């Protein structure tokens, strides 16, 4: 049973950042802007916020510093996503190209800045944020060990973001307008919606969440950020598509991926998996293979936003 609890706790560390970043991607794509820059935005968000954390950990301590760092991650993610927004909304650039540019820029920026200002490539920080047990809640049977032991506040923030995202997307005027811009921007425009503004909002939200996701991914799993997020931005993109651009399904997809990742990372510690004799590389491949298989069976009736990837052209019918 303790193995099971351990696996679920580990799964959280991988799934929550995927969930947050994929939800970010959802806002961007639902507004009509494809955002393959998620990977780069995660790197920038993680780098700047961890640099901040590292510089402040002498002055501020504990969860307050983590929260402040999260705000920095959100801010820096939004800032870098402005580049993508400007290129793809104002300049009507190919959205994949401008996203690629951000992805090329981010790791180089992180490594260059770290080496120029810290002297080494890695941004090291002290992890003082793990919550061994949430007082009271951790003693609940089953649920306690699953969700309230060996955890981080980021886990709860991730779930909160899920609920808020769902509410904003489906229950507010803003959400309806955003979705309209991703499906048929000309019609949205005719109904008096400012398409440019809605798309900016979509990309900026994705920047905020991707930046946050970079930090949330890094803090539990390492104490030395190395200018990369190991393809999690791309994985989040797969989660988004796997989740058919819908918050509930994204949650499911994120946990599926997170669990697969956990198995790949921890299979040596699980006797019956080890006995199967499957090489570790195949465990690592599994989430990617599963994505392809699932997409093979779901892509015919894809629920992708209809106008995603197209620059808005007011004259088009």
């Amino acid at each position, binding site marked *: 049973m303790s193995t099971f609890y351990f696996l679920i706790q580990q799964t959280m560390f991988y799934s929550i950042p995927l969930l947050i970043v994929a939800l970010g991607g959802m806002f961007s794509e639902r507004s009509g802007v494809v955002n*393959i820059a998620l990977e780069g935005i995660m790197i920038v968000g993680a780098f700047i916020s961890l640099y901040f954390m590292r510089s402040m950990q002498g002055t501020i301590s504990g969860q307050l510093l983590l929260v402040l760092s999260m705000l920095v991650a959100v801010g820096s993610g939004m800032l870098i996503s402005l*580049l993508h927004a400007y*290129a793809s909304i104002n*300049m*009507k*650039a*190919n959205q*994949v*190209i*401008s996203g*690629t*540019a*951000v992805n*090329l*820029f981010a*790791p*180089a*920026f992180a*490594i*260059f800045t770290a*080496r*120029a200002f810290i002297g080494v490539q890695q941004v090291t920080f002290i992890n003082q944020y793990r919550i061994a047990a949430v007082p009271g809640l951790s003693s609940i049977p089953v649920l306690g060990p699953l969700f309230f032991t060996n955890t981080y506040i980021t886990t709860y923030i991730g779930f909160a973001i899920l609920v808020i995202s769902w509410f904003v997307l489906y229950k507010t005027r803003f959400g309806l307008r955003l979705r309209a811009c991703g499906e048929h921007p000309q019609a949205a425009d005719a109904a008096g919606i400012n398409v440019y503004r809605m798309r900016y909002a979509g990309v900026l939200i994705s920047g905020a969440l991707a930046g946050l996701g970079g930090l949330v991914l890094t803090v539990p799993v390492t104490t030395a950020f190395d200018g990369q997020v*190991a*393809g999690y931005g*791309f994985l989040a*993109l*797969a989660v988004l*598509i796997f989740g058919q651009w819908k918050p509930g399904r994204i949650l499911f997809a994120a946990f599926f991926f997170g669990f697969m990742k956990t198995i790949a990372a921890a299979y040596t510690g699980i006797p019956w998996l080890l006995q199967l004799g499957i*090489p570790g*590389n*195949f465990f*690592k*491949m599994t989430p*990617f*293979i599963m*994505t*392809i298989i699932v*997409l*093979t*069976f779901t*892509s*015919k009736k*894809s629920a*992708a936003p209809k106008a995603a990837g197209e620059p808005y052209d007011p004259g088009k019918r």
Partner: protein
Amino acid sequence: MNIKLNRLIKSRGFASISASLGAILIGLLFGYIILLISNPSEAGFGFMTILRGGFNQGVRGVGNGLYMSAPIILTGLSVGFAFKTGLFNIGASGQFILGAFAAIYVGVKWTFLPDGTVWIAALLAGAIAGALWAGIVGVLKAYRNVNEVITSIMLNYIGMYLVNYMVVQTVFNPTRNESITPSRAILPKLGLNQIFTNSSVNIGIILAIVFAIIIYIILEKTTFGFELKAVGYNRDASRYAGINEKRNIILSMMIAGALSGLGGGILYLSGAGKHIEIVDMLAPEGFNGIPVALLASSHPIGIIFSGLFIGHLNMGGFYMQRYDFVPEVIDIMIAIIIYFSAFALAFKAFLEKVSKKKGGKSA
């Protein structure tokens, strides 16, 4: 004279070349500013080192620049060819590393081949492996409408883990945790090493240029190429016009994959000490193909030059390290160049507007 000039300005080629050159200038400028901020006293010197690129070390440096350009010209062609046919091949990295593995495998294991022919078989194997790997993307796109960007990204990771596994199983050097040298399949140098003494240059750069020309001919001068492009513009209309659009999507991806796989073979058969290391890291050469293609607006002949240019910048970055500069400034510059070349569309529209205005006045 004026009419000729006007036509030149209005031509698409001129617009894309000037847009690329503009983007390069902006990128270089940013690079200089970054150097100024990080190390004001040596910024000028560092910047000159970048600009000189391979020329920092005479013929040897130039030769090494050519050696480094060959694989990225091929991955650039791979990305560019796919672009021209309406597909975004972000999977060059996976195709590249599978090609590299296949080439090394054949180079090491096919001992029955006579000396001097092994490298040909090895390169062919590399191209085939890349083609098959990319073919998966094509088949899924053609028959199941699966977005090629996502499958390509997934296959990059699957390919990396698969190659790591296969190298360990077949052509492994355990003491160095990398693949063994395919010493019978080293690419011929064709005397290039006498022109560029002490450099690693070999037949690879010539092959890259030849393939760029072949791709140009296929795309621009053949019905086959026309059909491929037509499918890229509008899949439904092409089917209506009697083009087998499924077959063409698959073939497009396979050709793109073959080019990347060939690039992998060329890099790892150079005999210049390059081995597949068993690390969980995607092959960067595949991703470098993207800026190479974008900078040339996916034009095959242009890709030769953009590949040489990016190879040149990378050499500059290499020499910068000797003087204690951080070479990542090169990647930042390349990213900025790509970002601004994404504005090419807006830039072209602007040029057209200007030339139209002028035309209106003179009439």
